[in-house]
């Protein structure tokens, strides 16, 4: 029995497409609901981010419930930045009880990069330990070794950084995540497919699914900003030049084209098992990018 609809799709061998939505800062979720409605049938699952970049938002778990209510398949992003092991376990029980069975384990960005820089960072456990913790709960026990009444079950994902400029320690962590029980990985933003190819040569020895992270760029300025300010992102100069080369106001169109041709190449060359689209702030354009990636006009 698969843990979730998404797990069933992961194991079906089809090319997987996931995306993510960032919940609003506040209680008005109408825009998020609008995006869920647009995305739910276009992708295999929707991640809901957990105070991405340490910027306070409506909670990930709340967002996942909204995705479910609207007929989508949610992936609960869960960082270790804001909750200790008690709070994490409690949220996992709640998620499972309410039918959220996909979870993405993350360490979480530093508090210092966000909008509450004076907050106390928790990091009681890390992403590897969180994965182990979930598998322990599935065996019927909490982290303190006490028996649970009703056990949760999850399809667990995590992240990996194939474009890291020092890949070896990242691969050590990747191995540990696999051993801990991660079933699928959504990579950090991929811009250089040769790096993805190299990573896949390594990771194909493990029985895990790899979804290449595709960040939709909207301008050269955004790319430069991300290089300087977003942890782990490295947009290469040739893409920045390509974005800078278009006339004003056409940046996003170019960004969509870049994303679509990257997806097309990945799918046609079967570089990995799927893609994870991150259209930061432009969630609504994801279905269009997926369509473009399947059209003849976009060249891989």
């Amino acid at each position, binding site marked *: 029995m698969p843990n979730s609809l998404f797990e069933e799709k992961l194991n079906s061998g089809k090319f997987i497409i996931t995306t993510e939505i960032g919940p609003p800062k506040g209680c008005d979720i109408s825009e998020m609901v609008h995006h869920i409605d647009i995305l739910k049938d276009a992708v295999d699952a929707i991640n809901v981010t957990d105070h991405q970049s340490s910027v306070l938002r409506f909670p990930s778990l709340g967002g996942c419930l909204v995705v479910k209510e609207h007929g989508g398949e949610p992936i609960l992003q869960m960082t270790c*930045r804001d909750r200790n*092991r008690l709070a994490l376990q409690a949220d996992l029980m709640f998620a499972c009880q309410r039918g959220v069975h996909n979870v993405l384990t993350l*360490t*979480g*960005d*530093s508090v*210092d*990069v966000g909008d509450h820089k004076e907050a106390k*960072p928790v*990091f*009681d*456990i*890390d*992403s*590897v*330990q969180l994965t*182990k*913790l979930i598998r322990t709960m599935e065996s019927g026990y909490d*982290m303190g070794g006490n028996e649970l009444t009703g056990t949760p079950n999850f399809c667990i994902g995590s*992240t*990996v*950084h194939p474009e*890291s*400029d*020092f890949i*070896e*320690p*990242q691969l*050590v*962590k990747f*191995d*540990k995540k696999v*051993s*801990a029980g991660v079933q699928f990985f959504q990579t*950090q933003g991929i811009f250089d497919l040769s790096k993805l190819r190299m990573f896949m040569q390594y990771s194909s020895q493990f029985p895990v699914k790899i979804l290449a992270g595709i960040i939709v760029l909207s301008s050269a300025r955004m790319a430069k900003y991300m290089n300087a300010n977003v*942890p*782990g992102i*490295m947009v290469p100069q040739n893409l920045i030049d390509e974005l800078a080369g278009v006339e004003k106001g056409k940046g996003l169109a170019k960004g969509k084209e870049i994303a679509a041709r990257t997806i097309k190449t990945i799918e046609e060359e079967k570089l990995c098992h799927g893609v994870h689209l991150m259209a930061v702030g432009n969630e609504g354009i994801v279905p269009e990018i997926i369509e473009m990636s399947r059209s003849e006009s976009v060249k891989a």
Partner: protein
Amino acid sequence: MIVAERKPLDVIRQMIAPYAKVLIVGCGTCVTVCGAGGEREVSFLHDELRLAQAKNPDGMHTYSEYTIKRQCDPEFIDLLDAKAEDVDAIISLACGIGVQAVADHFPDIPVLPGVNTTFNGVSSEYGVWDERCATCGDCRLDETGGICPITRCTKGILNGPCAGPKDGKCEVSKDMDCAWVLIYQRLERLGQLDKMRRYYPARNYQVVPRPRRIVVKSNVTAGAENA
């Protein structure tokens, strides 16, 4: 050693505003070495306070100063008894431990902190101090090539780097080395990368309930326990 920084003069002046006679007490150990609260800094602060008062007579204070060898040991604090006889407040330029030890010793005198106790660190070069130990009470430096991830990784994580480092630097600051990059390089050099490949379970915070106490009487005196 313990590294501290002197509080700004206006903060100290605000703290002492209600008190006429103020004793400034230095500490001859860590804060002397890091230049925050030794005899020299006590004398500087004394001069600064008098100068500020001369320029801006917003209440008259009289000051005295004294530096003891260590503010964290009762036998040295005893030496302050005569100096503190008729003072209204004491500014301690010791670390937070010294401030509290002096406050314990003088229950009727307000004892005010003159420094911010910052971290346990090493002197990397002249005048530069870097944090090295979080005093977690569960040292695992044998497993991490002598580089502490709890102190030097901004997230204090145990199973390898997050996805944040660029050019070997932490996502928090381009001036800060990623601890896990350093650990990897060191373990590789030592031929001990297997240590990093091991899974490390979550930290046991029960070994550090606060406040902690250590009893090692047998090492210090031959007391009843050793008889």
